[in-house]
């Protein structure tokens, strides 16, 4: 019984901590972030199994974890609001060539990182970015202006 409660607690606690850390933790990891993610299981493994190294205990812990993952995944799919709570929401970093400072600061994504993603998308200038969005996975998606779209500079002038 205790193993189920401990596994459940660790699952919810780690989920809570990772949500607090922000989206970038799920993307490319810096050395500091990597250390944290490597240490979490190390620190919690003893807390979950304690001195009980029996196969029964391991099966209970893994079943509990897998069950929680499945239930959370089903709930996030069925109820989008619950999904927002667990995964967060995508957020706009650049809108029609203009950086959205508030989102950049909140997600701790510097302009250099957006510029790097722009280069990968084959875009040279920020003005040519229609949308840059940090996805719930932590990756940055870039949507550039396409042929037929309103000329970026023109649109900015109009606005």
């Amino acid at each position, binding site marked *: *019984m205790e*193993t*189920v*409660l401990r*596994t459940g607690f660790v699952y919810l606690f780690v989920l809570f901590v990772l949500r607090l850390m922000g989206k970038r933790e799920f993307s490319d990891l810096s050395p500091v972030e990597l250390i944290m993610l490597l240490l979490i299981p190390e620190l919690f493994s003893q807390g979950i199994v304690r*001195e*009980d*190294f*029996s*196969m*029964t*205990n391991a*099966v*209970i812990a893994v*079943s*509990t974890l*897998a*069950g929680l993952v*499945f*239930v959370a995944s*089903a709930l996030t*799919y*069925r109820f*989008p609001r619950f999904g927002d709570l667990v995964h967060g*929401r*995508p*957020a*706009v*970093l650049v*809108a029609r060539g*203009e950086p*959205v400072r*508030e*989102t950049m600061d*909140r*997600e701790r994504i510097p302009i250099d990182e957006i510029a790097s993603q722009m280069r990968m998308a084959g875009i040279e200038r920020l003005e040519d970015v229609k*949308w840059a*969005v940090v996805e719930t996975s932590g990756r940055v998606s870039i*949507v550039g202006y396409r042929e037929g779209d309103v000329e970026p500079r023109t649109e900015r002038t109009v606005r």
Partner: protein
Amino acid sequence: MSGELPPPLRVSAQPRRVKLHRFQWIGLPPLLAVPLLALLGVFGETWTRVDGSGPGLALSVEYATRYRYKQINTLQVRVENTATRTLDTVVVALDSTYAARFSTLVFVPSARAPFEVELVDLEPGEVALVWVELQAERYGRHRGFLEARGSGLPDTVRIPLRTYIFP
């Protein structure tokens, strides 16, 4: 502009229903049942107390009937002299077949011979306690007994033991 996705980047809401593959229908119920059964204590420790008596001696044994591999538990024996005279010695012995299923057996008081404890000068009505610490070494169902023999008494008192060790 806040960080919220603007309308062009949003997709319209679609009805959502969770559906399972056939393999998931088969596999998920037992997977989810394991933690539920564990919460109900199915894979936990259970204890029992068994009493027995013979002419001049009463025994009461409290022990774990179910616990997990490599876990340590205690078998507690209460020996009472119900005779009208002092018993010079009472030997409390654990069945060797049963004992062999466990490791690091610790007897309190110390064992005189393998798996045997000797209690001396037990006066009428006196109660003595024997503790045996057992670490589960082999999983499965184990059966055995614990017996007590008082000096000068015609019979031994035997208590059956049954323990299941989870893998």
